[in-house]
C-alpha cells in the first residue's frame, strides 16, 4: 500500500466541530493497544494539517497525548507533542472490555465531562488539556465517527 493510500485509510475516532461552515476544533484517536500510539502519530498529524485542525489527542488505556500545531511550517511536521499524562480511571476501565466502540464512547464521555466541569467552574483539569484542548470543546459538537455509510446500509 502506498504512503498516500495508508494516510487515506486513517479515520479519527472522535471529532469536535464548531461554526458555520463547520471547522474541526479537535481530532481524537482512541487506541486500545498502547503500542499503536506511536504508529498513529504520523497519520494523526497529517490529518490535523490537512483538515486545518490545530489540536489533537491520541488516547490509549495508559496515556493521553496532546498535539498542537506549532505553525512553524506549512506541513504536517508542524504538529508537535505538547503534553502527555496518564489516562483517567474511567478510560482505563473502559479499555478492559477490549471493545473499541466502548472505549471510544468512554473517551467521548470524558471530553463531555471535561466540558461540564468547565461550565460548572470546577478545576482540576491538567494544564496541557486546559490550554490546548478545553478551548476547542467548550461549545463544540462532540461526534463519534462511525465510518462512511456503505451502500449496504452497514456502518
Amino acid at each position: 500500500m502506498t504512503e498516500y493510500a495508508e494516510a487515506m485509510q486513517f479515520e479519527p475516532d472522535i471529532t469536535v466541530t464548531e461554526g458555520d461552515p463547520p471547522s474541526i476544533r479537535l481530532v481524537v484517536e482512541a487506541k486500545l493497544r498502547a503500542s499503536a500510539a506511536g504508529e498513529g502519530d504520523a497519520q494523526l498529524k497529517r490529518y490535523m494539517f490537512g483538515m486545518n485542525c490545530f489540536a489533537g489527542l491520541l488516547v490509549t488505556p495508559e496515556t493521553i497525548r496532546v498535539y498542537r500545531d506549532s505553525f512553524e511550517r506549512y506541513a504536517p511536521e508542524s504538529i508537535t507533542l505538547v503534553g502527555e499524562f496518564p489516562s483517567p480511571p474511567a478510560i482505563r476501565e473502559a479499555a478492559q472490555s477490549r471493545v473499541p466502540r466502548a472505549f471510544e464512547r468512554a473517551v467521548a464521555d470524558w471530553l463531555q465531562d471535561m466540558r461540564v466541569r468547565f461550565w460548572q467552574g470546577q478545576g482540576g483539569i491538567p494544564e496541557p488539556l486546559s490550554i490546548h484542548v478545553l478551548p476547542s470543546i467548550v461549545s463544540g459538537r462532540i461526534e463519534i465517527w462511525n465510518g462512511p455509510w456503505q451502500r449496504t446500509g452497514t456502518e
Partner: protein
Amino acid sequence: MRHVFVETNWVIDFAAPVSHRLPEAVALLDLARAGDITLHVPAVCLLEARRKITRRDPRGEADPIRRFLAWATPAGAVSAEEAHCARLVLDKYESRVRLELQSLSECLDALRTTGGVEVYGMTDTMLARACELSAVVELEPFDLAILSAVLIRAADLAAAGEGDSVFCTTDGDLRKSALCDLYNAASLSVRRDFRIDP
C-alpha cells in the same frame, strides 16, 4: 471512475483565502484535475460559497491583535520593535486576504472549466425531489436543494452503471442518520471529510 460529490463547505474550504484554506480540499481538486476522480459540484453551492466567503472581514481577525499591541506596547509587555513587526505582518495579512477575495469570482468561475470537475445546475426533477424531501426531512432550504441535487445525480450515475459514488460533506445536517436510507437508495457512501483514496 470514482465519482465524488461535494457541497458548499468544500467550495468554501477550497476557495477561501490561504489562511483558511483546507489542504485536503485542494488535494481533492488535484485528484479531479489528474483524472483520478470526477468531482460533482451542484452549481447552487458556488452561489452559497461566494456569499459566505465574501462575508469574511480580515480586519475582524487582525484588529483584536492591533488592540492588544496598543495596550501591550506602553505596558511593556511587547517591545516597540516587536509591535512594529507585528503590525507589518498584520498589514500583509489583510492585504493578502483582500487580494484573494478580489479574485474569488474568477476562482469560482474557473471551476466550471476545470478538467475532472462537473458543475451542474438544478433540474426540474431535482426541484421536485427537494419539495418531496421537505415533507419528510428537517433541513434548511439550501441543504434540501443540495441534498436532492446530489441524490438525483448519484442515482442517475448508478443507473448508468457508474455506481462507485461518495458524498464528501462536513455539514453535520447532511450526515444525519435519518438520511441514511436516502443515500443507500442512491448508491452513495458518505464521508465527513475530503480524503479520498481513488
